[in-house]
């Protein structure tokens, strides 16, 4: 039987207290230190919630990230935060990576507060990075995905490997809508091979059209949003580890763990790799109180399946 795991990659929502602190900071009513203290409280709470839910990998929730690209736009030469741009079909916006002339290159790998490696259990944590292909596709000017992979993301993945990370989830949101050429993505992924297992997750969208080709890519796992993708579109048998997006991170409706387990049970019949239960994208699209309950239900669903083995 395939191995079963559960975890929650991506950006986790800020608590109401952290929301207020950041609002106050923008209005000059509090200090950066006070915001940082609240962020540390949020981090401690998130780690506790994941442990209590029995999740297999922990995430630091990317609580200091303004969006999935921003830390790299600020830390890499040759990139700047560009215009505000809508993220997929959500009411949320990111600053598009904007090339500033010279070839992009990471000055030095990101550590705290962007990756809180020291707070996470060595060998049992998951990191989330933008896919180089999505980063190039969503840039406000011409950027080469392979260069981004080699000079910006690769040094970061090496740092993650040295700091106890177990798995890197690459968020790939630029493959929807049909007629996508996967060759630039495949070439970029070649540059990232080696230091850590890679999962390519397609959040908040119908992956049906490209799934057949995705399984050919040089990644250990592929992530599918099953709130946007017909399960019938899954290639069978599925030759890789499947990150099954079974918790809807865009809806406040709480999933029934038994229903999620039932869905996972059916998937297990089709898999050659492992089954990883995950949300279908960043949990930051629901308020923190709801995200916390969703994590608990994710863990519960995985527990049901594991106990059946």
């Amino acid at each position: 039987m395939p191995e079963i795991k559960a975890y929650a990659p991506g950006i986790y929502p800020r608590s109401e207290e952290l929301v207020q602190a950041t609002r106050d900071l923008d209005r000059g009513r509090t200090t950066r230190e006070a915001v940082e203290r609240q962020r540390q409280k949020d981090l401690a709470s998130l780690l506790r919630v994941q442990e209590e839910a029995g999740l297999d990998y922990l995430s630091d929730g990317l609580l200091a990230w303004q969006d999935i690209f921003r830390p790299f736009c600020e830390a890499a030469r040759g990139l700047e935060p560009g215009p505000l741009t809508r993220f997929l079909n959500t009411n949320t916006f990111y600053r598009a990576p904007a090339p500033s002339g010279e070839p992009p290159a990471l000055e030095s790998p990101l550590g705290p507060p962007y990756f809180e490696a020291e707070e996470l259990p060595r060998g049992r944590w998951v990191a989330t990075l933008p896919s180089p292909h999505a980063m190039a596709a969503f840039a406000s000017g011409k950027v080469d995905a392979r260069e981004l992979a080699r000079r910006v993301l690769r040094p970061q993945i090496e740092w993650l490997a040295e700091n106890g990370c177990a798995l890197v989830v690459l968020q790939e949101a630029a493959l929807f809508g049909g007629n996508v050429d996967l060759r630039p993505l495949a070439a970029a992924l070649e540059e990232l091979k080696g230091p850590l297992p890679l999962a390519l997750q397609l959040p908040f969208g119908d992956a049906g059209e490209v799934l057949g080709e995705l399984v050919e890519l040089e990644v250990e796992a592929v992530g599918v949003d099953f709130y946007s993708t017909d399960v019938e579109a899954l290639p069978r048998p599925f030759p890789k580890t499947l990150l099954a997006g079974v918790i809807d991170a865009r809806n406040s409706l709480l999933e029934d763990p038994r229903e999620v387990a039932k869905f996972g049970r059916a998937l297990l019949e089709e898999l050659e790799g492992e089954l990883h239960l995950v949300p279908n994208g960043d949990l930051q699209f629901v308020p923190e109180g709801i995200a916390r309950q969703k994590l608990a239900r994710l863990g519960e669903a995985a527990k049901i399946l594991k106990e059946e083995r």
Partner: protein
Amino acid sequence: MAEIRFTTREIGSLSKPGWRVKSVVGRPLNDGDVEDARRWGERLGVEGHEELVELLGKGSGFTEEEKARIQDFAALYAIRLLESAGLDVVYDGEQRRSEMYDHAVKHARGFEARGTVRSFDNKYYTKAAVVERPKVEEAYDLEEYRFVREHTDRRVKVPFTGAYTIMDWSYDEHYAAGSGLLGAPAERRTEARRRFGIDVARDVVRPNVAGIVRAGADWIQIDEPAATTRPEEVPLVVEAFNATREGIEARASMHICFSDYDCLFPHIERLQDCYELQLEFANRDSRETGTKDGDRPGYAVLKRFAESEWDGKIGLGVIDIHTDFIEPPELVRDRILHASSVLGPERIEVNTDCGLRTRTWEVAFEKLRNMVEGTRLAEAALNGA
């Protein structure tokens, strides 16, 4: 040939003065807030503004009755600002509404607040979930409309948040519940969203619109900023507009902004009796004057409207609401002249890209005044003056 005359109007919102915001939420006012009320009251010639200045002098601890009076003044100031700028059509700058989504769902049964989510950076918005079939029993913007009607001689256009946007910005704990959407085919998910959207159109937006039309409103505007968020659902945007409009005896427009207008084709051909689409263009355009195609990149999509079988008017966004840049009248003129050459002047009316709520009143006033002046310049050019 009849003389060309464009109607000018704002889209909906203006920013709320500090004295209005602080007094209503219970924060103390400072001298600057009171001075602001006095200065704008004098500048706009707001009748009775001395009463407001005296009331605000209290500084804090306003009673509910006093808060209501302050809200009335905020609406009156906004009406006078739009009139003073020279607009043909006015409203109250949505001074009584908290925010376009929140205002709509908090008046409807069937929605529950769920909390705060991030829009970008440290900016957030509140979201609600639909938990049962939504409904409003009666028009909830009636008093707001009556106040405006009683305080202006200009034509009035009433903005409403559209059904599709309310649906798209809400969580769904009702239509999606129990329908097994995990791993389901697209048709089943689409059908859940369609039922939600049409119920909101018929049972939330339409009763509000109908009540205000019964009270005398003859021009309504349905705001759908989410219209092209999911291009495959533009037919549902159209269906929701038609469902909202059903049985409403008034002119109806639809405002769509910061969207991919290419997605509207050909679906807008199915809009029923939509007087105009009020759209945002200035945000995408050059700031240089000129009327040729190459001078006006922000208006390139107008050609598609010219080719479309849909033949309603275009409410031409000529003022960028995201910047403090004050568009010179000559730039406004050239945007109108260019659009007139593509569509014909009979299909053009003039407005801002969207509500000016993110600009100060000083900037908003200057922008609107130049919009009116530029419109008059365009008319003069077209009428051969």
